[in-house]
């Protein structure tokens, strides 16, 4: 039913390999420096022909960095098309990603053979460029029975480099991350009748083939563990809630793992506090945090990364029904704190609170990061270009925030730190329970700040903790260099970078 996605294979080969390559790539991609310098694989005659063709097409050399010009076919032997790319020495990771994205757009539909790429990029920039190229070509799974065939697009990328061994190693690690991002995007995109809680659990179990230890806590286990918040959110659905525990133990024995927690609402109707119909279909993506966590574990396992990480997928469907939890309900939690429910549509923080508390108690982690498509408020605050980063304002919290922000800058999964304050305890005060999970609906309340403070109450002060509200960048309307519009898999590249550095 699903068409085969475009995931071109990358072959790394020495820069001076003769042209044309043995398996006859259909497209040549040639980088030209700002000094007009062609790579050595292009002969002087070919250079003259290409320079003339560029002039004729109204784009004479030198090209601007990142500019891509498509030229007619017959200029180089056995090619169907030639792409000339303006490149700059000292290309930053961000520029390399922009270049990769531009190449993806230019290559789409040019033919499904191979491409012969000769660009003067160092190994790190090459990997960023290739990753962005591949991730930009990702397409959402479709169930259309009469879908148009995908435009014929490259199946193999032959990348010329002066240091094939170094680049091969880097690319293998990057390819694992690309797979993780693609997995996360696929899951975000699947509709809620297909990706139910049990179907998500099957995806989790599949990671055991990569050496990940998978444990599933079903409703009975959740009940036995006292996870009343998580159970309540899922209780109206015919597919019961579950917690998937994914343990990758690549690090030295005896070292505490890092804990990742993902909000996995396979669908969020809002419950009794039903959402308006307009845009509700987007709520199939309300498991973007859990998707990022499973994608990260996939990448780490494929890399055989020398780190120990536990990922928790807090899965539930927030359905409406005759057994749904109600505003005013008072719920027990794993931590022992009682919680009064105000708005059943603020369910994400409930499942996360139990998962955070259970994870800290069970895994004794050295640090904990949760990811969640948590609030509309964070989109009002930061739009779709940054996720909100909340961590405690002390030395360990600041250090964690700084490390995550570094990884964000390197990978392009952008974070912006927001204040985490106990000032909001007053807004979360309940007359009937230890606390309530949100303030009553009103105009202009800082709900993202309230949610962050609520979550922090379920993580012991001794454990460095960061909460990423990814409601904005998890799903985008305008493409990024490495992501078409739609599901982004936000968080996978960020977390893998942070965990493996």
């Amino acid at each position: 039913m699903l068409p085969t996605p475009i995931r071109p294979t990358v072959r790394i080969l020495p820069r001076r390999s003769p042209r044309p390559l043995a398996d006859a790539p259909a497209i040549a991609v040639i980088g030209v420096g700002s000094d007009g310098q062609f790579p050595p694989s292009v002969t002087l005659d070919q250079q003259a022909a290409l320079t003339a063709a560029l002039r004729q097409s109204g784009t004479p050399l030198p090209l601007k960095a990142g500019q891509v010009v498509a030229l007619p076919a017959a200029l180089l032997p056995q090619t169907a098309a030639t792409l000339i790319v303006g490149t700059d020495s000292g290309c930053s990771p961000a520029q390399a990603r922009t270049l990769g994205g531009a190449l993806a757009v230019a290559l789409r539909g040019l033919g499904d053979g191979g491409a012969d790429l000769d660009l003067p990029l160092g190994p790190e920039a090459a990997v960023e460029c290739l990753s962005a190229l591949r991730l930009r070509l990702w397409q959402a799974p479709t169930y259309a029975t009469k879908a148009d065939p995908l435009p014929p697009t490259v199946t193999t990328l032959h990348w010329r480099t002066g240091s094939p061994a170094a680049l091969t190693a880097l690319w293998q690690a990057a390819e694992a991350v690309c797979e993780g991002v693609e997995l996360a995007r696929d899951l975000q995109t699947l509709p809620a009748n297909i990706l139910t809680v049990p179907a998500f659990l099957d995806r989790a179990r599949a990671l055991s083939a990569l050496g990940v230890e998978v444990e599933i806590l079903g409703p009975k286990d959740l009940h036995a563990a006292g996870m009343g918040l998580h159970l309540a959110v899922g209780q109206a659905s015919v597919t019961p809630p579950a917690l998937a525990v994914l343990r990758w133990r690549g690090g030295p024995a005896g070292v505490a793992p890092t804990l990742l927690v993902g909000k996995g609402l396979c669908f969020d109707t809002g419950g009794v506090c039903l959402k308006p119909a307009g845009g509700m279909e987007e709520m199939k993506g309300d498991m973007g945090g859990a998707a990022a966590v499973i994608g990260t574990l996939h990448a780490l396992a494929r890399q055989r990364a020398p780190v120990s990480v536990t990922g928790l997928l807090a899965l539930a469907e927030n359905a409406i029904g005759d057994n749904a939890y109600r505003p005013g309900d008072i719920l027990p939690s794993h931590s022992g704190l009682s919680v009064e429910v105000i708005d059943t549509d603020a369910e994400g923080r409930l499942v996360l609170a139990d998962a955070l508390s259970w994870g800290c108690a069970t895994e004794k982690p050295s640090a904990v990061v949760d990811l969640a498509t948590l609030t509309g408020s964070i989109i009002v605050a930061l739009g779709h270009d940054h996720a909100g980063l909340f961590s405690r304002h002390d030395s360990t919290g600041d250090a964690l925030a700084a490390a995550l922000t570094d990884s964000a800058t390197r990978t392009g999964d952008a974070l912006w730190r927001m204040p985490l304050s106990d000032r909001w305890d007053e807004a979360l005060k309940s007359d009937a329970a230890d606390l309530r999970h949100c303030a009553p609906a009103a105009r202009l309340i800082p709900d993202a700040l309230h949610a962050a403070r609520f979550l922090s109450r379920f993580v012991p002060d001794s454990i460095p903790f960061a909460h990423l509200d990814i409601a904005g960048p998890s799903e985008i309307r305008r493409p990024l260099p490495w992501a078409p519009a739609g599901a982004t898999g936000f968080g996978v590249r960020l977390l893998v970078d942070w965990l493996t550095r």
Partner: protein
Amino acid sequence: MKIRFAKSGLPATGTVIVGVLADRTLTAAAKSLDDAGNGALSRALEAAKFDGKAEQTLTVLAPAGTTLSRLVVVGLGDAAKADVAAWERIGGAAYAAAVATQDDEVLFALDGIDGAAVTTAEAAARIGFGALLRSYRFDKYRSEATEKKDDKPKVTTFTVASDIGKDAKEAFAPLDAVAEGVFLTRNLQSEPANILGPEEFAKECQKLEKLGVKVTVLGEKEMKKLGMHALLGVGQGSVRESQTVIMEWTGGTKGEAPVAFVGKGVCFDTGGICLKPAGGMEDMKWDMGGAGVVTGLMHALASRKAKANVVGLIGLVENMPSGNAQRPGDVVVSMSGQTIEVINTDAEGRLVLADVLTYAQREHKPKAIIDLATLTGAIIVALGGEHAGMFTNSDDLADKLFKKGQATGEKVWRMPLGDAYDKLIKSDIADMKNVGDGRNGGSITAAQFLKRYIENDTPWAHLDIAGTTWTNKDLPVVPKGATAFGVRLLNDLVAEHYEG
């Protein structure tokens, strides 16, 4: 209310405030009263579970063994950790507890505090400052018919008694000037829009001339000549004439480039043709909060004779719907020459600021610009009332403002700027439109709009004070209502970084 400083010593009668340190450690004054009552005060503290936490208060009427009418005990917390802002909050909390007294004088017996992080003189001055700030009351429209006699505070003098009353008085003098500025700002923010329109506001500014401030007022005719059509478009629906006021204080070296403060002064904001819903619209009388802050700040700087060149510029308009009001879809040419498609007439503050920012740079060539505006509802959703949103092109300015915010308690939180947000204000028919992607990232797109009016990368910060200009509950040094948020922050910024 007058703040006085005296030598240590307890009066025999009236209302007295004494401090108790953390862990219920009595100060000398508290101890002497406890002894006079044979330990009655200690028993009262124990009975009330009063442990000396900062700003905690307890009132004892007719305390045993004394002839006082009222004793207020205030928690001082850990004096070794208390900064100046902590002492201000203690002063404010103490005043709030003591104000119910029937006496017209209140005495805070501070004496000396061993091991305090600040000098006794500084602590005393800050207590007086905090009490004064908290004593503000906007009651000019409460007539005797409704104002209950007992509600009106009787306290006219607040005395802080310490070992070194004279030094405290000296330390207090510049703070008194700041408090005057704060009160002016709060008055302007509290005045209803039928009383304070653009021209009335401009007249208030002209009163600063007495302090040596040069005040220039531009009317609509002058602004038309200058091409300030972005500002004029906002005001054109109102019968009241728009104004721009320029206040120059030249306390620094002659000829040196000034620091510019720019304020949004929408004296009332109905939203215009994009009319706001009725609920809560009365709050829009304080949509001139930024202009109020700039005016109060200029007052404070001039009356304490700050050694700096500072120019304050405010754009004053009223945003009304009418047959001549600006419409969604209108295109205006700003003073900078850039064209703006007005999509939402309720995103008017940035239109006003754009022209005033351009004017400020063309006429005054400032070395730094800080603008203040009650600009977006989105900043309230983003940050609540704890921090103002700070947007800046200068890491240096960001650092200075953040630190001063922490020190004064008028806190700011930096928010992002970037090309991805700038793209959201692209217009199909003009250089830009005045809103972005609905409410999403709404404070950021507003800031991106303003950034387009900053020339030559002049260091610039924009403070979105929509969440911090008004408070619905009493805060230690701010009674419920207008806060004047920004006056103390920017006064201290000027004092530390632009004077000398």
